[in-house]
């Protein structure tokens, strides 16, 4: 028996050593780049696809793009790590560990967190060396990635939240005008009235919202309708002023929707998509990135969206302030760390490739980051781009100097959810929201 024990001791040790050795040595000597991104994993469908034009959806397109880059550049190998959205806990841990990925997807809204700590490489020189000029970017994109006068990420898109509409149900509800366009509300009261009408006619909720396990949607909704009331809640980027009558109006509106059953209630993000695809409600509040997927579904016979069609619009203007809605963007940032010239050159090549393929990326539904693509006929010819085109002007971000926007988003989402679902009084929620955010910002 002891022999078994000893043998297994030795065998296990040997196996560990062997495994360690095998795994440590890279398979080939190409320049290795690590690329960490969200957007999900879809190796089963697109793991070996290099034809970007055949890919659909964020995951499929980005996977195919990296595959294509690797195929085109045998001397470089981009190794992808997919993280759970948005992956910032992990990225922070990696930076803290001194072992960040070379290239990483970062929201414009999160760039300053890392930039202020000196963790990101300014890209001006690298981009210039690869023939990418800041003037090529759309204004929103350029502003999103510029901090202290320098560029800290290659913008790949701008995105915002949209009204994804099930036209079949809208027709049943009588919310389609003569020209076949959906009738959208122009005020809070109209919204509530139309939702009521929708429910009476179809028996289904007007809105599909992912309210379970969610903070982002609440926050984006709040920001959008605060913008529409000209509320400058981040006049001072280190101190929020959000316990305001404007904010209360927004929260009360969503609370009314919730209380009257005009929204789905217990769906999480994935379930909300399923619900919309299954025709469980009229309007899905989701981002630009779903246009490609929903459009694909609408073109497939037998689906709920195919029945009466799929339409997509910016959030309706419900208040009397400036026309605006919350927007953000994705960028590719490069970590500060010691690199050989080959590695830096390889990163430049990869960024150039991504910039060149911005059109492919915009097929997801996002607004392209490159002016040339935005203005191109090919982009305009993509489905539904006519109706969502205004978001290029409407899109508004928080001031770039506001840090920890994702942590703030968690706080806002938590408090709004508490107010809307009735766990807490609206006033108490807003007060807590403000004090918690300010506590966070005061302790950066």
């Amino acid at each position, binding site marked *: 028996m002891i022999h078994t024990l000893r043998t297994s001791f030795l065998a296990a040790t040997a196996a560990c050593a062997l495994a360690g050795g095998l795994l440590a040595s890279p398979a080939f000597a190409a320049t290795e780049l690590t690329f960490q991104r969200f957007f999900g994993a879809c190796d089963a469908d697109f793991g070996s696809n290099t034809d970007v034009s055949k890919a659909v959806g964020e995951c499929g397109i980005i996977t195919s793009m990296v595959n294509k880059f690797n195929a085109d550049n045998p001397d470089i190998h981009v190794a992808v790590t997919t993280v759970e959205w948005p992956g*910032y806990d992990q990225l*922070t841990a990696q930076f*803290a560990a001194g072992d960040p990925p070379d290239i990483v997807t970062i929201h414009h809204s999160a760039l300053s967190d890392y930039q202020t700590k000196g963790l990101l490489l300014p890209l001006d020189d690298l981009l210039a060396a690869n023939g990418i000029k800041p003037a090529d970017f759309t204004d929103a994109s350029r502003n999103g990635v510029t901090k202290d006068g320098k560029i800290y990420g290659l913008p790949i898109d701008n995105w915002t939240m949209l009204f994804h509409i099930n036209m079949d149900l809208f027709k049943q509800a009588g919310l389609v005008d003569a020209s076949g366009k959906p009738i959208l509300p122009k005020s809070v009261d109209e919204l509530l009235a139309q939702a009521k009408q929708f429910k009476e006619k179809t028996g289904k909720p007007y809105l599909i919202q992912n309210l379970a396990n969610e903070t982002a949607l609440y926050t984006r909704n709040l920001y959008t309708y605060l913008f529409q009331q000209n509320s400058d809640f981040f006049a001072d980027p280190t101190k929020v002023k959000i316990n305001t009558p404007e904010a209360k109006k927004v929260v009360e509106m969503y609370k009314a929707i919730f209380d009257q059953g005009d929204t789905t209630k*217990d769906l999480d993000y994935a*379930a909300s998509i399923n619900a919309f695809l299954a025709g469980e409600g009229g309007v899905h509040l989701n981002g630009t990135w779903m246009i490609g997927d929903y459009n694909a579904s609408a073109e497939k016979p037998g689906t709920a969206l195919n029945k009466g069609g799929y339409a997509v619009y910016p959030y309706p203007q419900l208040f009397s302030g400036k026309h605006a809605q919350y927007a953000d963007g994705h960028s590719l940032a490069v970590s500060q760390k010691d690199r050989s010239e080959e590695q830096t050159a390889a990163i430049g090549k990869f960024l150039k490739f991504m910039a060149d393929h911005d059109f492919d990326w915009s097929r997801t539904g996002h607004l392209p980051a490159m002016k040339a693509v935005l203005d191109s006929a090919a982009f305009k010819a993509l489905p539904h781009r006519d109706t969502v085109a205004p978001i290029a002007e409407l899109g508004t971000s928080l001031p770039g100097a506001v840090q920890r926007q994702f942590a703030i988003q968690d706080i806002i989402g938590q408090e709004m959810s508490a107010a809307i679902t009735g766990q807490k009084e609206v006033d108490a929620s807003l007060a807590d929201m403000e004090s918690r955010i300010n506590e*966070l910002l005061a302790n*950066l």
Partner: protein
Amino acid sequence: MADAALSSPANRAAPAKARVQNVQAPLWRNALFVLPFLVVFVALLVVPLVWGIWLSLHKADAFSSGRFVGFANYVRLYNDKIFWQAIGNTFYFVLLTVPALAVIGLMLALALNSRTRTAAVLRTVFFASSVLSVTIVTLIWRIVFVPGFGLLATVYGWFGAAPPAFLSDPDLVMIAIAIATIWWCIGLPMMLFLSALQQIPGDIYEAAALDNANRWRTFRYITLPSIKRTFVLVVVIQIVLQFQLFGQAKLMTNGGPNNVSKPMVLYIYEAAFTKWDLGLGAAASEVLFVLILIAAMVQFLVSRRKGESA
């Protein structure tokens, strides 16, 4: 007088005391056996513990060493409603799971304490979930609870009803996490009780049968007193284990909605890696440490009492 003749004094002029080779002597080289562990222990547990206490007195983020702030982090914790809520959630969770684990575990052990093949198979079934990792457990239960297409929704759907919103109703999320946890952890208490039940000598039951004790009285007056210590042990072990709730809450609800399912460990994790507030996280860690220390001392006292009476 007796011939207790003492030996010849041959060695009486014994030489100066030689270096005595003593099997019980405290020799430094004996410490070589414990040295490897001690090095790891000190480097990876003691040092971080002290470092953590030091950190908790500083305003520090992941990228800069920070400045000394005294007990400011603890004051912030004291004033942080969410922290208190996290402590409350943790206790609530312990309250939800531990009694259930102990009672269900005991009932299963009683039901399955027999030599039949069926009992063996059922024991296997009830213990099997214990070997799964937390991410698979949560994945499974999300797929059970998830609205719209979960198992629960499907079953309710057959009756045209809407299932309880286990993952989003503030009153239900902790219960949902507790259900998943009990499903996951029930094997260990069951096994502990089973082995305790087997320590009870069979002749006591024979004596009880001769005394005409019915099932309940046998349980109440023979089984229960015999496994009292195991019961306490199970409860304490489970308190310490369930106090460390993290994975289930993070993966099933991410602490939501509005922090009602955020346990202390998730609070610490978020303080450090979402808010980058290492000092605050370290301070919260120390609070957790003290709370678990109390539980561990109870465990120590219980096991020591066990030692005395055994």
